[in-house]
Each structure stands twice: as C-alpha cells, then as structure tokens.
C-alpha cells in the first residue's frame, strides 16, 4: 500500500529525514518509535504533503501512485488520514458544519450514531470546533473524523498521549473494529508508549533515529525497548556495523 524509497527531506536547508525506507502492505499494523526529535512526526507530515517540507530525493508511493508533489487535500482524497498530536481550534465554525465541509453527504443521523459509539455528547456537535475541549475530547474528535472520512491508510500521531486508560481502551477498540470492517486498511502508529502492545498487536515495529529507520522487527522489539531503552539498542546497532 505505502512505499517510501530512499527519502531525503529538509526544512530551511537542514536535512531532517535521511535515506528512509519503509514498506507497509495492505491490512498491516506498524508502530514507529524513537527518541524525541528523531523525525517521527515530520515523517507523518511529509507523507500527508505539508508544504513546508521539501523532498530532496526519493519517492513516496501510495497505491501505485507517486504522491511526492501532491497537495495535502489531494492526498487525503486518495485515502490517507493523519490524526494530529495537537489538533487546531476553530472559532466560529461548529463541529457539524465542519463535518459538512469535509463530506457533503453527511447526515445528522449518521454522525449521531458515531457520536454514540465514541461517547461524545450530541450537544458537542453544536459547539465550536475543538474550542474549550479537553485533550481527550480533541483526540476523540480526530477519531470521529477518521470514521467519517473512511480512509485506506491511517496515521495516528501520539493518539494515547494525555488520555486516561478508559478512553485509550475505547479508542483502540473502535480502531480495531474499523480495521476488521476494512481489512485492506493499514495503520501506522507513532508513539512513545510501550504499553500500547496491550491494546493492539503490530505486525512490525520500527525505531527511527536521526531521520532514518535503524531497527525494525516484530512486536518483541517493544519489550526490548522497554528493558534497555533506545540508546543502548542504537549503540549495539552501531557496534555491529
């Protein structure tokens, strides 16, 4: 589904992603981990076409199409969805109006159903978009958008940060249910939390450091990270080389 080949990208002439290779097949769940400032979130921005980031070299291929030069709205229409770490707040536009702008076919009944699943109050639909929402409510709103858009490829950027256990369980339950109904849909989770393995079992786990993927393996890699930390694994890799 998604292939990244020899990717080099930069902001303001400083290289951030260096020779990154990644392949995610249909229906696979991947987890991307790494120390702070290693380039996890920037990778998600580059995939979704944020114009600040310049692709110097390499290709991003999604469903056999090169999406290097596409604008973010065209990429999202191809079926890539990114749930943001810090979603924006929009004053003056209600949640329901925002959903209408995303998809014109949206019915109130449909959205009410989805709200029930996510434990979102119906009255919140008539509040301004994310304005005065708590961190958990904002993340729930992101998942609600995901369910409305029905994407083929989902990127969750630190979906579990700042959430209590019950809401994490609920969100992952919904995500799992969505993946069951759409078996071709694949998922990329960006997190720091090693406890994520309790809620979802990945096919592959990758460690990113200094803008390139250094290690990748099965779900066991998460346990190794929890035991030894990132830097010891990175040192070992360097020594082996």
């Amino acid at each position, binding site marked *: 589904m998604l292939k990244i080949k020899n990717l080099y990208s930069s902001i303001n002439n400083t290289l951030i992603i260096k020779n990154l290779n990644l392949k995610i097949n249909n229906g696979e769940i991947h987890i991307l981990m790494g120390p702070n400032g290693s380039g996890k979130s920037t990778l998600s921005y580059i995939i979704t076409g944020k*114009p600040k980031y310049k692709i110097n070299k390499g290709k991003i291929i999604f469903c056999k199409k090169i999406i290097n030069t596409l604008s*973010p*709205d065209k990429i*999202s229409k191809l079926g890539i969805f990114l749930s943001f770490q810090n979603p924006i707040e929009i*004053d*003056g*536009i209600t949640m329901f109006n925002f959903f209408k702008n995303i998809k014109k076919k949206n019915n109130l009944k449909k959205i009410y159903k989805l709200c029930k699943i996510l434990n979102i109050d119906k009255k919140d639909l008539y509040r301004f978009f994310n304005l005065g929402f708590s961190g958990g409510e904002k993340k729930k709103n992101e998942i609600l958008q995901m369910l409305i858009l029905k994407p083929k490829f989902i990127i969750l950027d630190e979906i579990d940060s700042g959430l209590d256990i019950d809401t994490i369980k609920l969100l992952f339950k919904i995500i799992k249910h969505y993946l069951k109904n759409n078996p071709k849909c694949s998922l990329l989770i960006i997190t720091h939390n090693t406890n994520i393995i309790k809620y979802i079992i990945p096919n592959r786990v990758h460690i990113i450091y200094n803008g390139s993927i250094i290690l990748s393996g099965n779900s066991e890699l998460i346990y190794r990270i929890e035991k030894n930390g990132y830097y010891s694994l990175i040192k070992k890799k360097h020594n082996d080389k």
Partner: protein
Amino acid sequence: MINNKFIINNLKYYINILFFNGLFLKIKIHKKLKKFYNIKYYLKKKKKIKNIKKKINSKALSPFISNLYTLILYIKNKNIYLYNKYIKLNLNFINSFSLINNINILLILDNRTFLFIKETFKNIKSNIYIINNFFFKIYLKKKSNVIYLKYKKNNFSISTINNIIIYQKKFTKFILYDINLYEKFNYNNIIINNLSNYCLSRINSIIISSNTQTTNFYLLINNNYSYCNNKQYYIGIYDDSSKSILKGLINVKKNTKNNISYQNYKNFILSNKVYINLKPYLNIYTNNIKCSHGVNIGKINKFFIYYLQSRGIKLYKAKILFFLSILYKIINIKTFKCLFKDIKNKLKLILNKKKFYV
C-alpha cells in the same frame, strides 16, 4: 459579542425614509407604530449653504450638490410594555445621476426606545459616481438603544464620508456595524460622548479591500462619566494596493471610575503593495479603570490551512473558512446570513486569483 438574533428576523414595525438624489422625498411610518410611538419630523433649511451652492453651480464642470438641510426626527415610546422591542429605520437612497449627497440628520430617541438603523443604496444608471457626505447626530436618552448597520451592497461607484456624533445618557447602548467590501473611498469620523454614567458602546467594523480601495477610520470616545463600557473590534483584509488609516482615541477624564475600554485591530495583508497606518490611543487621567489596546498585522496561519487541507478541503476554501472563523468574533453568522454570503463572494474574488501558498 452581543447576540442580535431577534432583531433582524423579527422586525415588523418600520419607518421608511426615502432620499432621491440627495433630497428628502417622503417618510412612511407603519400604521401600528403610530399607536405606540410618538414620531415627529421636520426639515430645517440652511441659508448659508444655499449661497455656496449657487457659486458651485455657476461653474460648468462642477458636480451637483444636493440641497442642504437637516432632517430632525424625534421618536418616543408611549407604551411601557413595548420596552425591549426594536423598530426599524430604513434610510433609502436612490440616485439617478452622479452627485455629492449631503445628508444631515438629527435623531432624538426618547426614553426606552429601541431602534435598528439600516441604509440601502440604489443607482438607477450604472455609470454613476456618488459621494455621500453624511452628518448624523444621534441623541440617546435614558435606557434607549441603537443598532446601526452601515453596509453597501456590491456597489463600486459609491464613496462615503461619515460624520457620526453620538450623545449617550444613562443606561444607553450604541452598537455600530461598519462593513466595507466594495466602496472606493470610505471615510469614517465617529465621536461618542458619554453624558452620564452606565453607557455602553460597541464599534465593530470589517474591511475587505482590493484594487485601490481606501479607508480612513477616525474614532473618538469621551468617557466623561463613570461605569462606561466601550469596545471596538476591527478586522481588515487587504489585497492589491489598497490603503487604510485607522486612528482610535479613548479619553478617560478625571474623577471617573470603573470604566472599561478596549480596542482591538486585526489585519491581514495579502500583497506587498498594501499600505496600513494604525494608531490606537488611550488618554487616561484616573486610576481604577480597565483599558487596553492591541494591534495585530500578519498573514494567514499556515498550520490551520494545512489541517483543513489534510481533511480534504481545497486550498481556497480552507482560506475562506479561516477568515470566516475570525470574522465570527465580530458578526454572528446566523443573524447576518445575507451579509455573510456577500463576504464569502468578496473573499472568493480575492483568494481565487492568488498564487501565494497559504
């Protein structure tokens, strides 16, 4: 922000005043209004200006200046139970040739009268260029309210000079919505004088200008008494080689207390040729008051646009949503539905042709 939902939707009772080529033509008052309101009007001519007019007319190329007089309108609420209900004052201007309209109006609102003022302009011919020179004095007596909407629809050939002076007594409200989308030249000179305690005034203005549109906005608020509340919100979106000068001065005089005054100017520049000059002033001569003023000039928030685009919304639509979300702080979408359509159209005009990213 004050919610005026009930005002525009449910206003049945009206006073229509018609000006043809700058001359007062007729006044029409709703039948039921006469029962509950005491409405008087008369014209007062100015002899001196007549002589000036003669001199100007002697020159062949001089523009026509409409006859000069002051229309004095007095409205009094007879019935106490009608308190809190607005009536509508429509000022209709129809022009058949290019001229300078001199319109002097003195409006006196007696106790507990609520008024919503709206201006409408119509040009019979398309090639007309009109300069409106307003001189509007409004005198608000106890517990009376005025909401004044200044907006000209899709008309490039009108430019206005507004001189508005307001005198406020106890427990009065004055709210002005000044929306300028298409005017070539717009000059506003607004003076608000508080004549006693507990006066409230809001001035909300939106300017979306392109080409060579120019706006001058001068404001003076005199807080002579205590417990007064004045707030001004100003949002400007500028494109091409448009110009604007904004100067707001709030005076808080000696021996007053608990006054609240606030000025906020937000401006977005979409091209390099735009000229803006902003000067918010505060003259404070007492303690125990709340006063602040702020000016922002900047570009569109890029992350905001990226977020909307990542949800499949097109670039220019995302920009429009961005501006509408900011304009909402001044005007409620539900109350001014027709107005928002025009604002959207104007934004489309500006943003469609733009090549700059976000």
